[in-house]
Each structure stands twice: as C-alpha cells, then as structure tokens.
C-alpha cells in the first residue's frame, strides 16, 4: 500500500487529535465544573466580579512541589485559592478578622502542571471578586 502525502498528513492530524482528547479526558484531573462548584459554594451563589484582588506567583515554577503564592484583597472577609489543574482544585481558604493587619496571606502550594491559579475573595459586604493567574510548571508536584 502506498501512502500519499495527503493521507500521511491526515493520519498525523488525526493522531494528534486523538492524543489531545485522551489527555483532556484523564479522569484524575479537576474539571471546570469542580472549580465552578467550589466557587459557588464559597460565595454562597454570588457570582464573583472583578475587583481589587491580586495573586503573586512566579511566572515559571521549576518545581511544582512547592510554589510560593501570595494573595491580597483589601476589605475581604475570606479568600479562597484554587488550582484548576490539580486532581482536586481546592488549595486553601484564609479567613481574616478585625485583628488581621491586612487581608493578605502567603503560602507554598503544589501544582500538578502548568495551569491557572484562581483566587476568590468574599468581601465584608457579601459581594465577591475573583482573579486568576497562570503559572508554568516545569516539573509537576502531587507525584504519582
């Protein structure tokens, strides 16, 4: 059987497509729905808008096992951090009080792969704001 150039190209494209579908259907990874659900549960059904909330993270994290992250949202009652590409999206939720000097916190987190970090802040008046930031990961954490 001779394979023409057109057929060869078609096969290659098909193969790549199949591979991508396989990768995205990997069951162990958190889906967009899980993230959405977590946000809704956290805000009590309020759809978060934009606002004064920032995530500080390295652009490229060489080691996904420990990635330094800081988050700040002046006027927030609590802030939730989510990692959309981890097996379970929840990372941590910080709660502030009258004695908190500033509504910000720093920690170190695990990232399974290159992904978006999402922060949602629940403000003192009940509204919610969100932001996200993409972090490239060279070697993933959450080891297998």
């Amino acid at each position, binding site marked *: 059987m001779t394979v023409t150039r057109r057929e060869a190209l078609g096969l290659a494209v098909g193969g790549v497509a199949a591979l991508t579908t396989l990768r995205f259907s990997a069951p162990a990874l958190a889906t967009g729905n899980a993230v959405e659900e977590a946000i809704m549960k956290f805000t009590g059904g309020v759809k978060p808008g934009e606002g004064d909330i920032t995530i500080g993270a390295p652009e490229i994290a060489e080691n996904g096992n420990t990635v330094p992250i800081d988050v700040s949202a002046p006027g927030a009652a609590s802030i939730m951090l989510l990692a959309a590409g981890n097996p379970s999206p929840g*990372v*941590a939720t910080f709660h*502030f009080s009258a*004695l*908190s*000097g*500033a509504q910000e916190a720093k*920690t*170190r987190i695990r990232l399974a792969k290159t992904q978006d970090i999402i922060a949602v802040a629940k403000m003192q008046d009940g509204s919610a704001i969100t932001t996200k930031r993409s972090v490239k990961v060279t070697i993933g954490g*959450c080891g297998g």
Partner: protein
Amino acid sequence: MAKVKPRVKVPKKASPNEVVTIKTLISHPMESGQRKDKKTGEIIPRKIINKFSASFNGEPVFMADIEPSVSANPYIEFQMRVPESGAVRFEWTDDDGSVYDLEKKIKVA
C-alpha cells in the same frame, strides 16, 4: 513518623496598633492521598494539616482551611495588628485529630 515541629517567627516588641508580619512553618509530610506506594502499588492514605488558626489573647486573628494542594511543611505568612501586650496562640489540626500548638508573647511599648 517524623516528629511534627511547629516554628513561628513573631516580633518580641511592637508599638501600639502596629501591623506585624507573622511567619509560620510546621514540619509535616502533607500526604495528599494521591500518591501510590511504589512497591505495593497501594494508595498512601491522606494525612495533612487541614486547619491552621492564630488567636491573640483569645481573639481570632487568622484562620486557614488547608487542602492537599498545600506543599509539605506548610508555610503560612499573614499580617496582624497588635493592640496591646499579649500572647499569640497558633494551632495546627491534623487529619488524625491531633492538634499541635505554640504560643508567643508580644510586648507593646
């Protein structure tokens, strides 16, 4: 199991209502419940610090609900306003129910 050792960095002195940075670290493997034992192929059960809280003279200051995505030896840094002299109390709660705690005094001059 390795001994769990909490460590915190709190300034000894502060001026009234000064905002100070508090750094905390606790040695803990934070087993995510996703890893498999390489020899037996069985999943290593989850064992993490799931809650951290700080209080000042009994008043809550800062609390965190922690999930498996936080790195081993969880490090947490936050800001605190110091209204008066007193003690900051830190508590870490493990999945197995044990609580590790530590107290540090701050003097307001």
